């Protein structure tokens, strides 16, 4: 069974836990770096009309790639801890997919031949608010071609009592 897990900062831990528990899964961990983040750093520099000078030190892309690598490394570590627990390992194989572009569209494209998409909500249990799903997650939920498993990022806690 092909399982895609979309990892985003702050909520990926629950995603990895749920994906790792699916039996006989061929797991793909997906992370997207959005161009908007790069532009948000570069854009205002352009508006300084040259006062910024040439960009020195590590570039924005490098910083974002480093953070991405740290996240994927931590995700693998978490999966391995589940595998070391007693009992047979649930998932069969793991690979990583690093994407660039608009997050929601890249994730939907990555699910093209998947059987299951594991997705974390953006909000948590602390408030009984109307939205626990942001607009990117909503887009993926509306357009994913496969089944979707939606998890709370603070899995283990109960939903708020109404």
């Amino acid at each position, binding site marked *: 069974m092909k399982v895609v897990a979309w990892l985003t900062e702050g909520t990926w831990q629950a995603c990895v836990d749920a994906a790792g528990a699916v039996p006989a899964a061929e797991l793909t961990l997906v992370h997207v770096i959005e161009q908007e*983040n790069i532009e948000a750093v570069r854009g*205002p*520099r352009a508006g300084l009309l040259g006062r910024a000078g040439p960009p020195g030190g590590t570039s924005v892309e490098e910083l974002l790639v480093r*953070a991405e690598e740290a996240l994927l490394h931590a995700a693998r570590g978490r999966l391995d801890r589940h595998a070391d627990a007693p009992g047979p390992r649930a998932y069969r194989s793991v690979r990583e997919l690093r994407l660039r572009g608009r997050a929601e569209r890249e994730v939907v494209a990555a699910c093209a031949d998947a059987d299951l998409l594991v997705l974390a909500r953006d909000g948590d249990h602390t408030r009984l608010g109307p939205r626990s799903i*942001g607009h990117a997650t909503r887009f993926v939920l509306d357009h994913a071609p496969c089944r979707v498993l939606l998890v709370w990022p603070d899995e283990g806690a109960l939903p708020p009592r109404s």
Partner: protein
Amino acid sequence: MGSAVSVIILVAVLLFAVVRPRGLPEAVAAVPAAGLVVALGLVPARAAVRELGALGPTVGFLAAVLVLAHLADEAGVFRYAGAIARRYSRGSPRRLLGGVFVIAAAVTAVLSLDATVVLLTPVVLMTAGAMGVRAKPHVYACGHLANTASLLLPVSNLTNLLAFAASGLSFARFAGLMAPAWLAVVGVEYAIFRWFFADDLAAPPRPVPDPVPGPAPRGTLAVLAATLVGFGLAEPAGVHPAWVAAAGALVLSVPRLARQPGEAVRLLRAANVPFCAFVFALGTVVLAVRSGGLGTLVDRLVPQHAGLLGLLGTAALAALLANLLNNLPATLMLVPLARSPALVLAVLLGVNIGPNLTYVGSLATLLWRQILHARDHRPSTWEFLRLGAATVPACLLAGVALLWLGLRLFGVS
């Protein structure tokens, strides 16, 4: 005829500054353009020299502040600020946003918006990455606060420096009049950011063990604080604040130069002499435009009275011009046309808050970046524009309202 030519020359200078073919400094186009304008008789030579003289202390001030920010970075002030923000937020994105707002507002006010955009933003990006939270709201916050938080002091922005002399206010008076507006604008930005980025900020706090922040750069922070106090005290003593900034930069640079004389080259580069030449040249070209038809038109549009509506109209006009041209030429054009200190401050509100609408500061830069990125992933500018459309009108209204209140309280017109 003359006014059309001067406008064309100004547009050419701005386009060159935006496009920067082969990475050449803007002065390469601006200085010949200024010479051309004088040679064509669009500006009498004597007026040009007078303009240069008026701009002199401002440009010196700017160079000193740029060196000060560079030295603060070398001493690790921004890295320390990032570590403090991380400690304070304890893994929560919402608390981090609050910390970023406080730090970015302080850095912009004291070390100018250049320091926030060039030096603080990468630190915030790294801090967010190290904490494992989504970087987007915090990085956008730096970009926005670089503009809006630059209202407070004359040092905070080159536009303020350019207007400071014309306003006739003292350093302390300027800060006092702008302080309520500054607080209101930063508060409005925070509220809008919490709403706009609610999804990205809603992740549950995950405290990651922090590395112990290194020792605080106490010496540098003390010198910065002393410089700040010096700005306020300089004027009653008859000293231009530029000398205070230069003194602060000197105090910080002497120990470094004693250790590494080669550092002098880097300091000189930090002072950005080509950009100073650009400001001089731009001032001359804008003088020509002001004397022509466009200047008369803008003069007619600028409100005469500093009532609430007059202030609002001035700020709106300034914001519009800043988005069309860029905030520097807009300031150079509007400040001489503003008849009273109150209107000068309203112009500053407009040129400092307005650029958040097009996150790159002007439509020309925005279009150019779209063309640049046509081949690879084009960033969706809709998000920036929606955020700008949400923050700019609200900030302008709040800022003008509190400026008006402050003016009435202080009895300035």
